[in-house]
């Protein structure tokens, strides 16, 4: 999994959840509780503005790769 965090220099990584796709499986808030939380019905929510700190990038990718609905998206900028 080292390739998942390699090569980050000046980039910013953000996460977002597509609410049209999310069905509340909760894999994102299970795997990356620092980045995601659930709402009162169990649907995933992004904490704060979705910016992923460097040390949480691996968790963010795991959350995206494990979402059964492919609702978690990673946006790389810069």
């Amino acid at each position, binding site marked *: *999994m080292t390739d998942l965090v390699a090569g980050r220099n000046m980039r910013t990584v953000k996460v977002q959840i597509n609410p049209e796709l999310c*069905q*509340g*499986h*909760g894999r994102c*808030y*299970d795997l990356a509780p620092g980045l995601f939380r*659930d709402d*009162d*019905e*169990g649907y995933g929510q992004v904490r704060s503005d979705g910016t992923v700190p460097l040390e949480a990038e691996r968790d963010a990718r*795991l959350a995206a*790769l*494990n*979402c*059964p*609905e*492919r609702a978690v998206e990673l946006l790389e900028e810069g």
Partner: protein
Amino acid sequence: MAAAADDRFNLQALQAGEEELVGTRSEIITGPVADWATDFSHLEPEWSADPYPIQDDLRQRCPIAHTERFGGAWLPTRYEDVAAIAYDTDRFSSRSIILSNFRPPRELAPIGGSPPISSDPPFHHDARKLLLPAFTKKTVERQEAATRAFCHSLIDSFEGREVVDAAHDYAQHIPVRVIADMLGFPPEDGPQFRAFVEDLLEGINLPPDERIERVSRLFDYLLTQVHDHLDRPRDDLTTYLINAELYGRKLDPSVVTGAMALLLIAGIDTSWSAIGASLWHLAKTPADRERLVAEPGLLPTAMEEFLRAYAPVTMARLVKQDMRWHGVDMKAEDWILLSFPAANRDPAQFDQAADVVIDREVNRHAAFGLGIHRCVGSHLARMELRLALEVWLDRIPAFTLDDPGGVTWSAGQIRGPRTLPLRIG
């Protein structure tokens, strides 16, 4: 509102509400399968014993298999086809999600007999919304301490025994206890729940009259519980459903009891199967067992792999209209056996699909379904499975299959061990 004013559940009111709807019955066909591509049956012993080689074979040579049994049914085995059907609620109805020889009347849609699992849009969303808050990760965490203590008490009861039946003496008791607590049913009624589950999920090929008789036993029981809760309201799901409102009024009695039936039935067999299958795997795979004992932190990851490889739940759908679909000619009212277990072993979706890899980090499995019908109890199921395995591995780190030939599996759409003799001494 005073309980006495709630007369929705009086016998007279219930009878008046019963509509004259008739479904369709098909001929009951049993016996050995001639060719799995053209005559499949998930109720035959070969499937219960080991469905994976059958599914793997079909995926290669006939990815959407057919059978004339049950009045006509299709079995897709590729992940992409299973997902497409799960997402396509326009063409595939959830009006009945247990494949049998009886198709409930079309007028039953979009509510179905056990909402929201049996519901289609738009009713589905509203009925599901009622249940979601009761099953979030945070809500089910409140059951954790009691569940853990209960798992310990089951293992305490093994004192002095060298062989235990992990399916019968351990796995099955855990979800029964949890769901009885949540619905507010007497814990001593547990053995009855297990009979209800067998009646509904395994009695598929029984004569219609006997099947109706068995289903009405369940609903009689649920009505008794409703009346008990009307007399003595308390903080549980039954009272919650009795008081819940949809579209500005209280729920129809059939929706209340249908939802209760769903929670009772769907909450038991499924978790029981997942816990049992995981223990079965660990009993026959010492390397995985030893690694999990040494690295308890790996359990959440390993658990997802058990859910992928031994997904207990297969659903059903009904085709809404005649159509050509992914290369086959489907007819209105054909069943779809929607096998999430088969999808979970599709090599096009998973590396080493046939192997159990307990540290598989990327695991986009469909054990809890896909789309709008994602298992509403998935957070509860994961909590039960995690605690059941955690407590077992902590208390009984060394165990093996006592009699591999003596392991039996349930028949039908929920698959898991029903006899699992383990040597623990």
